[in-house]
């Protein structure tokens, strides 16, 4: 178990620069998620930490040890792969015991530790099964036990849930997270699924084009995205062009959006003066048009709506032609609304303003 320090990691393949200088200190015991779309460099970064890829520049430290030049098999990392990567000719026990045997543990210790970890992942008594005889979820549990039983300094997980069906995925999140909390293993988790990232992590790093765009606790990243990209990748967001008007004394700045004055916090200075308003769907309220819109309010028409039980999702087309996604919770306020209704949407003060260039 270790603190993991990444120092200005760069990686190029020929002319293509896949990682453009990633630095981060990940505290011991943290569940750290690398979140981003395919091609953002998250898997390459994970493989650099594992030692399968060597960085063009930069260093990886476990605690005080510089392991940049250390071979994978000497790093003491546990890895869980997207396709499970179980040894198909070995049964569950031998799969889990594999790393322990490489460490020359006595068979007595194997008999103690392997069942212990099989029990931890909920597979007690299945040691003699072959991987082919197990379901996807069970295989992933074996892979997890195999990676954890060696008590790795860092646990690396490469989109481990992407091959499972939806309900199993949610169930495995719990299994992984509670085991991680129990063992306090520093974990690097790669995913493109924002819901997974939000649900499991202590810390999320949103990656884009080989850089970490923003890093922080899930709630912080969700509430305070520093760029339009992060706002869209973590949760969903409405983005509308905004024009800076004045600084407010209350820390809220005022912007002109679609001709109406909206207040909110500014998340960065745009050098060219162009800003985007970021408004989460649930922070926008909607009502039938009985009166003219006031400040912070826009006029539009409901193009479609989806009733989803505890919440309702609206697709509103503003009079300017822009689309807006609005979510409301509870039925009472919205039961009167229907497709084609003219509505007033009100953008609350929870909205943010980010420099447009970062989109």
């Amino acid at each position, binding site marked *: 178990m270790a603190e993991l320090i990444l120092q200005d990691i760069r990686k190029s393949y020929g002319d293509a620069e896949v990682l453009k200088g990633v630095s981060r200190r990940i505290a011991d015991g943290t569940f750290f998620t690398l979140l981003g779309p395919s091609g953002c460099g998250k898997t390459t970064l994970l493989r650099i930490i*594992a*030692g*399968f890829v*060597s960085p063009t520049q930069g260093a990886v430290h476990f605690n005080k040890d510089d392991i940049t*030049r250390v*071979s*994978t*098999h*000497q*790093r*003491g*990392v*546990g*890895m869980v*792969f*997207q*396709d499970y*990567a*179980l*040894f*198909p*000719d070995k049964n569950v026990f031998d799969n889990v015991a*594999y*790393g322990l045997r*490489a*460490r020359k543990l006595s068979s007595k210790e194997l008999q103690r530790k392997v069942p212990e970890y099989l029990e931890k992942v909920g597979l007690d008594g299945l040691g003699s099964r072959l991987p082919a005889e197990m379901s996807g979820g069970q295989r992933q549990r074996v*892979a997890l036990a*195999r*990676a954890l039983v*060696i008590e790795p300094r860092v646990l*690396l997980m490469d989109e481990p849930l992407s091959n499972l069906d939806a309900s199993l995925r949610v169930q495995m999140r719990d299994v992984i997270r509670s085991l991680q909390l129990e063992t306090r293993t520093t974990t690097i988790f790669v995913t493109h699924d924002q819901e997974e990232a939000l649900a499991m992590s202590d810390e999320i790093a949103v990656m884009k084009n080989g850089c970490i765009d923003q890093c922080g606790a899930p709630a912080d990243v969700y509430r305070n995205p520093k760029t339009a990209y992060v706002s869209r990748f973590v949760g969903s967001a409405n983005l509308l062009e905004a024009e800076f008007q004045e600084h407010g004394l209350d820390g809220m700045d005022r912007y002109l959006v679609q001709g109406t004055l909206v207040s909110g916090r500014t998340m960065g200075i745009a050098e060219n003066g162009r800003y985007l308003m970021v408004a989460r769907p649930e922070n926008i309220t909607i009502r039938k048009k009985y009166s003219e819109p006031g400040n912070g309010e826009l006029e539009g028409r409901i193009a479609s709506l989806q009733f989803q039980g505890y919440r309702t999702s609206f697709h509103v087309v503003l009079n300017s032609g822009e689309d807006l996604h609005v979510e409301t919770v509870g039925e009472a306020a919205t039961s009167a609304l229907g497709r084609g209704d003219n509505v007033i949407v009100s953008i609350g003060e929870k909205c943010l303003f980010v420099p447009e260039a970062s989109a």
Partner: protein
Amino acid sequence: MNRFFPWGFLSALALIFLAIFVAYPIFGVLFRSFIGDNGTFSIDGFETFLTRGKYLEALMNTVILSLIVTLTCTILGVFLAFVVARYDIPFGNIVLLLPLSVLIIPELISAQSWVMVFGNNGLVTNLFKALGLPFPQFYGWFGLIYVMTLTYYVHVFLAALAALRGFDHSLEEAGQSLGTAPLTTYIRVVFPTILPAVLASGLIVFTLVIGNFAISIALAQRVPLLSVMTYRSFISELGGNPTMQSTLATVSILLVSGVLFLQKRYLSKRNYQMVAGRTTPRIKLRGWKAILISGGAGLIIVLSLMPALVVLMGSFTVSRGPVMYWGQFTLEHYMRIWDFNLAVIGNSLKFASLATGLGVCFATLVSYLLVKKRSVFSPVLDYLLLLPLTISGTVLGIALAQSFNSGPIVLTGGLLMVLAMMVRRLPFGVRNASSNLHNISNSIEEASVSLGVPPVRTFFNVVLPLMAPGIAAAAILTWVTTVAELSASVVIYQAGQETLPIQIFRLISSDLMARASAFGVINMIIILVPVFFGIKVMKVRLFSS
């Protein structure tokens, strides 16, 4: 982390090995065909080839024979595959022995057995003579086409059968639902989809006939053929001017390369993806149709397996010189082998085990390097591995003999024999060994390494067990072909290094069929034992096409 060691280093070693023992001899032959008597550049060899009638005639004969045999094999193979796939015939399971028959009965023994039936002193020939009936001359076109067809049709049969079994029956039903009659449907829908497989196997037959030595030399006394002429030029001109040998070898290489090129160019593109569906239910035939169709199929099967039986009988039959006294049994031929020729069996076992051992190790390593550890050397390795496919055994023998008799590297005798046997089989060995490798995901190796096992030990711990079925198939098939190898070793061997096929070849040349038969039976047993062991005990799938 050193990225070059060990995998890049091993790739380089494999590359050097293939460069010295495959590329150097083959390009040496091509090169020497342009060197005249006085050691300077000349095209005399090709001039002689093109102006002397006998060479051109041999070339034409070879091409014509290859075309005819390809055609007859295709007809026979597709017919049998069609019958087996579509009809429920009484001896359906025996058909599964057919691919084995090709493995177990070496070409030479097949040729020999048919000479014993239809040749000058043959069973049937003598029967016809006794009845006062004329019998067609077996040596020549008739015998060549007959024996080669029965030897090679299995390649087409296997390919066509695999394609037919993979055919989705729903397509056929779709054809019928759209208004075509069952047989018309079959011709319009089924045949076009199996055509690429059939054509590909047909081309294999074509190249096999061009390179064939064993059957040709036994039966082509009256028809000049390229392979026989190449061999004779080497035997008669040994130590003399190698221009003509090289020229003949070059022509053969060009011919085979041309065919392989055509195959790569046109056939590899026409591979239909068949969605795995239901297989066609087999129809039970009744009445005269049943007799005709199953009779035809049965005849082909009987004829395919007959050589083993004839040779077995012959080996126990009393003989004086070339004359066989059928019906009188003796153990004399085996006693003679026991008394005088045990060394021949020893040679066969020694050379074949060395060639198989080395070949399989090499194939295992190279297939792993090519599939999993690509490096800058890999594309070159890929190409070098194709080279042995372009040369017949005779040409390989000549190339090795010419290249290593003198010059910077001198190899003789046993080592050269082992090398020849090993090199011929390499492309197939690599293909067998890598058959499972593509299905092994890279992450399995990475998992092992991340758990603390270094890369080389990971290969032995994790990859090798998963490759095992392919390696076993490679080992058995290499063994089978090296024990039966004649065309290259007959060019290279020196006194005291006779193998079973060489001994059989010499006895057939002296018309001592009964004694040849005894060697043949021993040869077949040596082939059969590991095949049987592999299939029954180790459950190796030899024909996973």
